[in-house]
């Protein structure tokens, strides 16, 4: 996924597009992240000013939610479900396989910036578990072959 480099103008436009909206902070942060791939720190004071919040309040929200990144992710993001229904279907073994093959722990990005491995607590695919999501594409009924194929796609 190609993201734009940080631009205060783009950020200002995004913020302006939510003017007058009730509870606009999360929608703004989602849009900022969609544009840049993460929530760049310089965006925080801009959002704070527009919404009459303190910078600390905005920062507090950015850091509270798992979705918001404070730095760019790898070129690919592999989210592996670690919740109970996937555990019951052998998900733990596959999760460990991902860490081993990609050489990163959950929550980390590979040194070459190729892939970020993240845990996700439920994709709602519990009846076709184990499940994962690669760059927004969902895959269920995972086995070693399928997860290896997903990992190969990040190469």
């Amino acid at each position: 996924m190609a993201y734009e480099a940080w631009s205060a103008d783009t950020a200002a436009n995004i913020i302006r597009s939510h003017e007058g909206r009730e509870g606009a902070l999360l929608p703004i942060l989602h849009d900022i992240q969609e544009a840049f791939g993460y929530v760049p720190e310089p965006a925080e004071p801009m959002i704070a000013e527009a919404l009459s919040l303190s910078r600390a309040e905005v920062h507090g929200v950015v850091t509270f939610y798992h979705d918001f990144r404070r730095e760019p992710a790898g070129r690919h993001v592999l989210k592996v479900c670690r919740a109970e229904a996937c555990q019951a279907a052998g998900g733990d073994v596959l999760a460990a396989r991902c860490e081993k093959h990609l050489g990163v722990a959950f929550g980390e990005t590979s040194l070459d910036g190729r892939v970020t491995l993240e845990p996700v607590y439920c994709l709602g695919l519990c009846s076709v578990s184990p499940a994962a999501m690669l760059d927004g594409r969902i895959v269920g009924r995972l086995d070693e072959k399928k997860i290896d194929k997903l990992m190969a796609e990040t190469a």
Partner: protein
Amino acid sequence: MAGLRIYVPGDAAAVACGADGIAKAIPPLAAKRKVAVEIVRNGSRGMHWLEPMLEVVTDKGRIAYGPVEMDDLESVFDAMIAGGAAHKLRVGVPEEHPFLKKQTRLTFARCGIVDPHSLDEYLAHDGYKGLMKALADPAGIVAAVTESGLRGRGGAGFPTGIKWKTVADAQADRKYIVCNADEGDSGTFADRMIMEGDPFVLIEGMTIAGIAVGATRGYVYIRSEYPHAIAVMNDAIRTAKNAGYLGRSVAGSAFAFDIEVRVGAGAYVCGEETALLESLEGRRGQVRAKPPLPAHKGLFGKPTVINNVLSLASVPVIMDRGAAYYKNFGVGRSRGTMPIQLAGNLKYGGLFETAFGITLGELVDDIGGGTFTGRPVKAVQVGGPLGAYFPRALFDTPFDYEAFAGRDGLIGHAGVVVFDDTADMAKQARFAMEFCAVESCGKCTPCRIGSTRGVETIDRIVEGVEPEKNLAVLTDLCNTMKFGSLCALGGFTPYPVMSALTHFPEDFVPAPQKQAAE
């Protein structure tokens, strides 16, 4: 429209099993054979082990095939052209499949049958009949919902009608309807399926709620892990607006109502209603102390109805068929039907809507067919990460709010996750504490600190460090969390932990001792 009408589910469970690729591959096959096809991306019927389950319209009705993988598509397509002919993957008429035949589908009546993008199909399948009856007697809505016995399907089981009455009676310049679609419990996907398979029923339910309590604005808070549901809901809301079912004058009436989708950001605790409201307002998803109840002071301090997707999606059928019709299903104080979600290590996983009262054993053994690994069932977690683990000895428990509570469990959002005998229940108990520690909003001490201490204590027990003393600590800790936490995250985490400990004590014995005992 001429030619073959083929259904390829757009439900995320089907998509995760390759449905998008199948849908794309059909037109070239059809062109090669010079056959005209119309592809409908329906919701899922809920027989997920058969996904992607394709259906073709024939003069004998719809004929299903599944699970269709790419390698089988060409031969399945030929069988479809031949009028639903024989094939090793032929399922037959879906409604006649025992899994569907045994169900009572009220909330899910249309899911998998209609095109979720078509308002016309919704209307042709009894859609908006409930709204019309509600508009004919707006003052009677709250009484009808109360009379139906509908209780909150999100997990708390609070009577929906009473909640609505409180908001209806509140005086305010603005009121809100908030739909909790932050379905974070592992093992649950019914909200997702409804939003992806029959989005208009949720819109209708929210609209009726708005008319009932005097709210003009609704929000659907959907978790970000559900991109497909978000897309379908947004599309359906646009369609409903264009058709005049949302907006300044709902279906030509004097009532105004509008809905907007808001997307969560990966915080499990936002499924708790007050944390969700905080999140909607643009803050950290921290739980609010109650009182005040959201019904008095909810979103932006205004009286707010906050209900789960399934609660709201059950309202149209209650209004259409009458409270008594709905109430006649079920047992005790659990009235109506429950869309139960069968998941984990199960041969026949999927969605099974039935009247309350079916036993856990029937669900796991008869309907679910036991484990797909073929090994014996060891434990079943009902109600998500905060639900208790039940052993086979409790399989006679009927699916009923009070019956589960009576056995130190909960039905929650009705997710059933099955584990085989390779499961280590001490590990599962540790995971419950770990999950609570990761997802705690941090507001109250029992949850924030207790969960971390819980992980440490379970580790010590398993390592064999003063096990008796540490078991006492764990029990005491669970007690503190249960009674001292602000919300269900800290308050219910003891359920999986204590049930694992109570029903599977052997798993908490340190490894060397296990060997010595054998």
